[in-house]
């Protein structure tokens, strides 16, 4: 073990060059089945609210290079999905997209009740973006606008993009099932991230930031363990194909932007072409960020923020 673990088992503040601010406020919630979810508030409390969450295998603090750009103008409410990140482990089941969608609703209601009703923009990546889509295809909008980054939307049977995305999902699932879940220290996991060629575009320091965001110190064993065990992460990679989200979001209509990773590189994320097709099929606002992969907010945070900011301005949402 290296370094001194904090009292809550997580390193919260200083992370490899990224100094996470102390939250302005913390909201500890219990979902209707008792699963704890902690929401943390940062930023400009008089600005519009941004609710932000993470992809599978990550945590909201992993996205600090991106959300730190919002601190000056926006009232940020960050949360990790159940069993992930800063939330204590609850139970292996339920841990699926439909449950995440209902957790979204509970989080939204609690944040509005505690911190006040105001214009709210949802900003979600991948897994959390899918949970948001699951609501809006039913016409359930907790948000006045949504910006979704590279959701793994699965095309219907017969579309060649479906097989490629599903093959990738199955590989992720299989790897997660046998994935090491205990580490001597966060650096050991950061080293893995640094060694993945498909993570080569990550900003310097993100590997360490992410490792510290998804690990929790275990004082009983003296090592660090994944907050969300790999076996729980695994099922979500293929469950996404079973969700009824390949359709146009139901009314009422609200501003929706999907930002996709670059489909052009030889090793492009399989999500990239699917996002593009999804948006073309259902006439959804779409932007692509050249030279990015699936973790685009951690590769090009400034360009992602510029797209987000321009989109809000175009839709009359001032921040």
């Amino acid at each position, binding site marked *: 073990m290296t370094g001194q673990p904090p009292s809550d088992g997580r390193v919260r503040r200083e992370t490899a060059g990224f100094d996470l601010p102390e939250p302005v406020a913390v909201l500890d919630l219990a979902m209707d089945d008792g699963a704890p979810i902690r929401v943390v508030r940062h930023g400009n409390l008089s600005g519009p609210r941004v609710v932000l969450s993470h992809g599978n*295998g990550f945590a909201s603090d992993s996205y600090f290079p991106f959300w730190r750009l919002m601190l000056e103008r926006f009232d940020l409410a960050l949360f990790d999905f159940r069993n992930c990140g800063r939330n204590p482990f609850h139970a292996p089941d339920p841990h699926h997209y439909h449950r995440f969608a209902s957790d979204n609703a509970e989080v939204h209601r609690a944040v509005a009740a505690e911190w006040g009703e105001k214009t709210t923009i949802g900003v979600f990546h*991948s897994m959390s973006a899918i949970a948001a889509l699951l609501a809006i295809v039913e016409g359930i909008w907790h948000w006045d606008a949504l910006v979704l980054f590279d959701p793994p939307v699965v095309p219907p049977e017969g579309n060649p993009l479906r097989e490629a995305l599903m093959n990738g999902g199955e590989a*992720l699932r299989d790897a*997660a099932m046998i994935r090491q879940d205990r580490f001597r220290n966060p650096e050991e996991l950061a*080293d*893995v991230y640094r*060694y*993945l060629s498909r993570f080569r575009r990550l900003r310097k320091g993100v590997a360490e930031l992410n490792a510290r965001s998804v690990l929790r110190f275990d004082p009983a064993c003296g090592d660090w363990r994944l907050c969300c065990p*790999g076996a729980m992460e695994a099922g979500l990679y293929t469950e996404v194909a079973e969700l009824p989200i390949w359709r146009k979001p139901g009314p009422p209509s609200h501003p929706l932007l999907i930002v996709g990773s670059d489909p052009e590189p030889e090793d492009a994320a399989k999500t990239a072409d699917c996002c593009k097709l999804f948006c073309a099929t259902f006439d959804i606002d779409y932007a692509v960020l050249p030279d990015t992969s*699936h973790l685009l907010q951690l590769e090009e945070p400034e360009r992602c923020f510029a797209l987000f900011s321009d989109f809000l301005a175009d839709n009359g949402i001032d921040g």
Partner: protein
Amino acid sequence: MAEGRGLVGNEQSEARLAMMRRQGLEPAPDGFDRVRAARESLFDSMGESFGDITMRVSRRTLVAEIDFEGVIGR
């Protein structure tokens, strides 16, 4: 060819390989071919006369050249 130089790189590569396999990841199908080609190219071009420099460069090259399938998280 000084066998020891290759072993330095191989040992480190083996450690990396084990580390990545613990994450459920395997080398890309051409991962080892690329390593072998990089090593041969390196020694062909630099010869025997560079001593420690050759060894250090080769270690970095071998480790950097193994490519792995997949990623963690999505």
